[in-house]
């Protein structure tokens, strides 16, 4: 009895495992971790340590400054307008793209991707060219006393443009992978289009939507390039949080700059956690096929 057992284990003495030798595995893991520490963890830690360098009181005072508060308020307003609009658009566009065939579908997919391929600065410039004083609609807007560029509407428009693809890009592959069998089943069973969407489609894409919204929100609050072009940097009026950080930094007010930056860093951390949970839930939903 013993002899065959010995030969058996002898044959499989780890020689046939499909993996790299231990030193190689350790080395690769170490390189990856070192890279992460150097480029991601260290800067993050630096932001917080600089922010708190002069203690809690200076930190809170820097945040409680009127210009900072107004920049936070403007950022929140911008995100509150841009994210819901892109949510509605993203859900409608991906529903149309994933569940129907129509002429111009590929063009629509390309257009959705456009903001990703254009530099944010150019995105901002587009709005200046259209709505600015020398722009196409400039004279008309001037005549009617409507201010878009160097005012809040311009910031919101530029943010909408830049964050346009996030939700649709997340939902299209998810909805395509789920197919339209369930929707067809609902229709055959007598459900209306709205009932089908609310009772069948929406629960299936719930976590995909949350994932898209959180990424869209992070970008909307953190956008610098496009907003910088259209904002005009008017303190206390058209400065968003990222723009305010830059101004404070340029004024050598490091503690305040890092204190405000820590708000964005905190947002990033929250985003990361919610994103991980949503990603995991989406994966689960796809595996439940």
């Amino acid at each position: 009895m013993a002899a065959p057992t010995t030969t058996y284990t002898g044959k499989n003495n780890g020689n046939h495992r499909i993996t790299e030798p231990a030193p190689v595995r350790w080395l690769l893991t170490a390189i990856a971790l070192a890279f992460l520490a150097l480029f991601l963890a260290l800067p993050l830690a630096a932001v917080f340590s600089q922010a708190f360098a002069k203690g809690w009181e200076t930190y809170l005072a820097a945040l409680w400054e009127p210009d900072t508060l107004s920049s936070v308020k403007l950022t929140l307003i911008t995100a509150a307008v841009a994210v819901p609009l892109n949510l509605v658009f993203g859900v409608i566009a991906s529903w149309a793209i994933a569940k129907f065939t129509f002429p111009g579908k590929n063009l629509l997919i390309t257009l959705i991707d456009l903001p990703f391929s254009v530099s944010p600065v150019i995105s901002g410039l587009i709005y200046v060219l259209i709505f600015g004083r020398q722009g196409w609609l400039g004279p008309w807007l001037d005549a009617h006393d409507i201010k878009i560029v160097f005012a809040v509407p311009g910031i919101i428009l530029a943010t909408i443009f830049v964050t346009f693809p996030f939700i649709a890009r997340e939902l299209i592959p998810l909805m395509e992978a789920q197919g339209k069998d369930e929707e067809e089943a609902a229709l055959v069973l007598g459900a209306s289009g709205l009932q089908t969407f609310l009772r069948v489609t929406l629960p299936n894409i719930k976590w995909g939507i949350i994932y898209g919204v959180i990424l869209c929100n992070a970008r909307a609050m953190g956008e610098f390039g496009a907003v910088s072009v259209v904002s005009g940097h008017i303190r206390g009026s058209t400065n968003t949080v990222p723009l305010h950080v830059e101004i404070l930094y340029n004024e050598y007010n490091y503690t305040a700059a890092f204190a405000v930056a820590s708000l964005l860093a905190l947002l990033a951390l929250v985003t990361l956690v919610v994103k991980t949970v949503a990603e995991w839930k989406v994966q689960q939903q796809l595996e439940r096929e």
Partner: protein
Amino acid sequence: MSIEIENIGKQFGSFTALDDINLSIPSGELVALLGPSGSGKTTLLRIIAGLETPDSGRIIFNGEDTTDRHVRERKVGFVFQHYALFKHMTVFDNVAFGLNVRPRDSRPSKSAIKEKVMELLRLVQLEGMAKRYPSQLSGGQRQRIALARALAVEPQVLLLDEPFGALDAQVRAELRRWLRRLHDEIHVTSVFVTHDQEEALEVADRIVVMNKGRIEQAGTPDQVYEHPANPFVLNFLGNVNLFHGRIPQPAQGERKTVSYVRSHDIDIDRSQQDSSSLSAEIRHIQKLGPSVRVTLTLASGEPIEAELTRDAFQNLGLQQGEQVYVRPRQVRVFVEDYQI
């Protein structure tokens, strides 16, 4: 409810999915649409359901033109190949869905819905599963829930798209026998799509054999099996051998013919029986459970396949490489240009 299909045509780009289909399905029958993939059978089923619109022709339910009626008003039950159960709902909510989405004035009360759902779960023998989610069921159970869900709205027509296609062989055989019994119980006009000839022969009252967007033959399982209208039907329903020959015809000289013999209609003997015996050499022997497939080559070099019962094979004691005689018991001759 009877279904009339009149001159239905459907084109997908340059591909003709259905070409002038005419078919009448009497009330209460269980009809199989049988054909290879790409024959248009699923498209026809989806057109009957209203999930696809035909380019031409009419669909008539019980004498009433329903071609332009929306899928939600057709009162059909549809069972999908991959079940299409609502993943985020329990089995109970899945089955109740069709009743829950009705407008308030025609929606049954909560207790009536509950009673109906429980009755259907009993019918598909899954009473205990009401609180489970689809992901917790086996493939066969899921398909039975899909069937219960389709029946909940009391459809006038039940349409099944390759209902057993995604299941393993044993569950498939079990489920199709069960479907036959169920149909004998509830007698709703049913159409199911399949590419499995055995399934069609076993379950259906009538078989409609389709190929390249056309109907090749429609009839009872016996009719299509015993009296195939053309070589395609013959070939699709079972393994056949081809023999090429000629018929002398006074007007045009000779016409080419093709003779078809089903592989289980071939006898193998050790000695020449009569003039129809042909000498052949055994090339290959394949044992397939209850039957044995013997591949031979005729003296002319043409390959031929015979299927014997295991008993007959053992009685003969055939060996690979042996010289034997083959004799076709039943030959069907078609005079036409047809290539398999």
